[in-house]
């Protein structure tokens, strides 16, 4: 998966967790929490969905790496290699 696909993958997961949020204007270098209403339970949901959809296991100590979309790309890129994008599941 390339950068754009990883961002799409994360946005699609966030959209299922927060169906009412508009994600079209999300900046990649600003903390997600500062742009949309996401609490710690929501981040847990992102982690669970990553495991379910892509088999990616994010250990608790690495949750902080997912704070921004850029952070997600940097952290997830090696784990998402060769994986197929799954959206709207």
């Amino acid at each position: 998966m390339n950068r754009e696909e990883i961002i799409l993958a994360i946005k699609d997961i966030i959209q299922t967790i927060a169906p009412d949020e508009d994600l079209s204007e999300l900046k990649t270098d600003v903390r997600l929490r500062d742009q949309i209403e996401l609490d710690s339970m929501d981040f847990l949901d992102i982690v669970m969905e990553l495991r379910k959809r892509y088999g990616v296991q994010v250990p608790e100590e690495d949750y902080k790496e997912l704070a921004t979309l850029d952070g997600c790309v940097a952290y997830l890129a090696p784990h998402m290699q060769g994986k197929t994008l799954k959206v709207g599941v």
Partner: protein
Amino acid sequence: MVVVGSGLAGLTGAVVLARAGRKVLLVEQHYNLGGLATWFKRRGGHVFDVSLHGFPAGMKKTCRKYWSKEIADSIVRLDGIRFDNPQFRFDTEFTREDFVAKLQSVFGVEPAAIERFFAELARMDFYSDSGETVGELFERHFPGRNDVHRLLLEPISYANGSHLSDPAIAYGIVFGNFMASGVYTFSGGTDKLVKSMKAELERLGVHIRNRVQVDRILVERGRVRGVEAHGRVIACGAVLSNANLKATVERLVGREHFTSEYAESVAKVRLNNSSCQVYMGLREGESIPFVTDLLFTSTASRFDSLELCEMDTSSRTFSFYYPKTRPGLERYAIVASTNAHWSDWNLLSPAEYESRKALLVERTLESVEHYVPGVRGKIEHVEAATPRTFEFYVQSPEGTSFGTKFEGLKPSMTLHEQVRGLFHAGSVGIIMSGWLGAANYGVIAANKVDAWLHSLVEVEA
């Protein structure tokens, strides 16, 4: 994997794991699901909710995410919440804005002091615990203002057993969730809620078995192997225990499977207090005018966490159930709840026990008559539950209705480091108690279970 116990944490853990694609067996010793989030019926068409008295707004989001839109959409806001005690008496919206307004207009607290208090609560970080107690926190912000302390803690005491001696950090987190944007309930009653949850679990393929008493959680070489019930062994790769933490470690698993340091830490965990309740059902065709939904009443001149638990406490909540609770059913009921100690009730002789229960009922009727004149004559069914009742039906040690004190959180969160594949979700500390805390803790634990099961597959592959 097996979930032992169907309290809200067990139920919600089960639904999250089922959605993650796990094969889930949910076992519950009682014939109903829900743990303390339950209901019962009595002759005459009476339906009583045991703990559906109010939960925070966040429950709506939690139900929307982990259960269903239908369940979330049935969550409605209570119309009225009232305090009535010798220090103050008013109706409240139960929002942060209204508490700020009341602190100024009724209590005469300076706006700056209120601002400082809320700012400190907002800054509280779970990982930087100063060791301060709730009582000390209150005293620092509102010195000598027992009435303010009462306002800030009494509702939470009924919701999750909080005391002035509990850690301030736990209070800060709960207060932010609970006393912020109103109190909510479930339209249709606990029966509709739990039945909807059961239907959703079944739809997702969860196997549910009621009346199954798990005798042991089986452990071999530091790893969970299965559960034993009715002499049968059910093998599994993971167990999520929604039994009380101490019961899980000491009764279901056995101390010998833990490091002595861990077993000691669990032995030192204090149980939270229990409750008494008085259920009053009005005769069919009888009605009462709208008083309020939730009434925090007391005749104690000062607020004191210990007084709240005394056997003859006058501090109780009344939950009024009008036809709006179960639309279509034109019935009225009132449930009174008090906090209580197991030690006050468990040693009574059968005769003493009956007379203490009768006294509890009588005092409660006197109190409710004060708010709803003439209601006594309309009440057809009345009965009391005590810590012994809760112990009997829920099997929590000493009938605790709020799990353990705060120190139970760490051993609960680290149980899987002791026995691989074994996880706990249940009331530990006031953060993980109550409707919202229990449900969310089920999700947190389910994430760990899912990660563990995921790692098993990776190793095998």
